């Protein structure tokens, strides 16, 4: 995959990425897709709780928190800073 193995879980704080592929087998991942985490959407890793889990992502102004175990199912293409 052209995402170099990057997933939402590997995005650094403040880094943006565009979701390229979602491994949707897990019903909890499907639930996150209903909240808007689907292919083509740009997301930003906004914050993490202590220990780096759960993580908060921003998309179109709304914040969603998800656990690392779910974040790794979302493959992203990181967007270079300044874009």
């Amino acid at each position, binding site marked *: 995959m052209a995402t170099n193995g990057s997933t939402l879980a590997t995005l650094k704080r403040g880094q943006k990425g565009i979701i390229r592929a*979602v491994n*949707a*087998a897990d*019903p*909890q*991942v*499907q*639930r*996150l*897709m*209903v*909240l*808007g985490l*689907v*292919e*083509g*959407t740009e997301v930003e890793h*906004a*914050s*993490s*709780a*202590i*220990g780096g*889990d*759960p993580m*908060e992502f921003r*998309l*179109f*102004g*709304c*914040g*969603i*928190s*998800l*656990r690392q175990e*779910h974040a790794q199912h979302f493959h992203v293409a990181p967007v270079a800073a300044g874009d």
Partner: protein
Amino acid sequence: MTKSTETRVPVNEITVAKRTDASIAVVGNPNSGKSTLFNRLTGLKQRIGNYPGVTVERHIGTLKTETATLELVDLPGTHSLSAHSLEEHIAVDVIFGRMEGTRAPDGILAVLDATNLYQGLFLVQQLVELELPMIVALTMTDAAEKSGIQIDTAELSALLGVPVYPVVATTGTGLNLLRSALADIKQVTPPRRIRVWPALSEAASQLAENASEPLRFAELERLLIDGATDSNQVIVGKLSDAARSKLAGVRSELFESEPPIARDARIRYAWVRGVLDKVQKSAPAYVSWRSRITDFVNRPVPGTIGLFLVMAIVFQAVFAWATPMMDAIDAGSSALGAAVFERLGDTAFSSLIADGVIAGVGSVVIFLPQIMILFLFIILLEDSGYLARAAYLMDRTMRSVGLSGQSIIPMISSFACAVPGIMATRVIPNRRDRISTIMAAPFMTCSARLPIYALLIAAFVPATNVGILNLQGLVLFGLYLFGIVMGILTALLMRKTTLRGPKPPFALMLPEFRRPNLQTVGIQLLGRAKVFLKRAGTVIFAVAVIIWALAYFPRSDEIPSGLDANSAAAVQMEQSWLGRAGKVIEPVFEPLGWDWRVSSAVIAGFPAREVVIAVLGTVYAVGDDADEGTLSTRLKSATRPDGSKVFTLPMVIGLLIFYACCLQCVATLAIIRRETNTWRWPIFAWTYMTVIGYVGALLAFQLGSA
């Protein structure tokens, strides 16, 4: 006289005359400003009830305009018409008109948050397919403007085929236009269906063939996406036999191996992004106080420290602000009781009124200050968006004990009082998590345990210092810690046994911080108070009167006349049903080192644990120096018939452990019943906690005395 009956208007005709012109379902994402708008439109003309068989609240309000009387149903927030949680199932069932006891809506008021069009349009697009008259209220347009978002409402309205009314619910801007539009909602032409997903529409029309009654497209589409789930059986029943046998085939052809929910999200969000490109322009946002706060709490360490500060303030306020009010209620009901005796004399009737009814009502009302203050904070924190962030920050910690971050607020609230704490578990969407939290909450040291701890510690723990710490304070701290450990163990135990299940999904929306609307806060606060007084009040009151009767009857003439009031009360207590019960049950509590007096005080404390102090005060009030000695000196000098002390250190430690564990609080039991909708959980909690308390006290006494 018989003729006059003909002119009487039958009751049902009166209600017909007052009937509403239209029922409108208010639908929107969670946190879309839906409830603020609903409160703003209906004000105090609201009824809060429950949907049949579940603990989800139904909010129905009336909106009167010059031309119409409308019934507004504030539905639980939902992200999609494919329901996920219980709340979403209810929202969807009401929308489709298949909720028992709730009118099928004549129209939809869709609430769209201008600062979150992305998720909002995902839902609104599905609502458009309902083919019902529909109006969109675009809320929080002021917040959107401030953060630099410009929305072309005319274009949005054209793309959706639905009238769009921008409003600011907090200030009332745009509400008059919205009201008059709602009054004529039945004249609004249902929107044309948007061709977002043609393959789904074709599959739906295949199913609609030869159906026994007309089927709505939206329902058929949901049937295709969700499959023949329980709530979809209604639609399956309406299909023709041919369509029913085709269903599985049509679905697998449509979705192949892709999960339908995932396909639904992919297709509709792609459409939403297209719409956003056309209607939304983002100008560079200036740094608002909101984003500054968000930035601060976004860093893990300051965020977590901030959370503890906030909780410390809330906890402190619940204690410090409530105490004067609770003292005032206590003093008020005592004074009222004394006044009753003064007016009516010392009769059974005046005792029923004073000690039963007034004290009983007092024991309910006394919880109100704490509930109101705690809920004021919870509502403020929830409406400002902070509650979600607290859950987010504490998720990892709470997960280690088998719960999720959403349990933190109820748990901490329970240190003040388990009743509002348990009411606050509503924020937990997962049922297993919620019940585990409810079972753990009563172990937290509530303010009613504090006077008992204070009395026993002051009387029996020496006020010496251990290092720089005071031993009495240390024991009190130990009791708090003990409660926390017991609560956590209970939650772990529940999650490992009866409530075992998959880890709850954790997808939490983290809304932007916003200033709460005071009117909405006030309306919610009043609603909470009403619910508590009505539901819990009836049970607590009934039990208080029963305990009064047990302590009052049977009356005996054998009380020697020369006794002072205190001693006479003590003699009466000994030969009352309560005293007799204490004696009957004494053998059960004998291994814990309790005599019949302590036993009857513990029985009397069943409705509310703090009552135990009052009863101990009565039963140990014998002797001439009773008036001079404080309760703690009287307890210290209490002896058994053989002259040995009743309150030995092991017995006191046992009593403390018993009170740390047992669930002597009818208010809590009543609220567990209400929140779980079954007697099973309150009965289990009571038995479980009493057994643990008994065993703990037994061990302490037997090991300590050995």
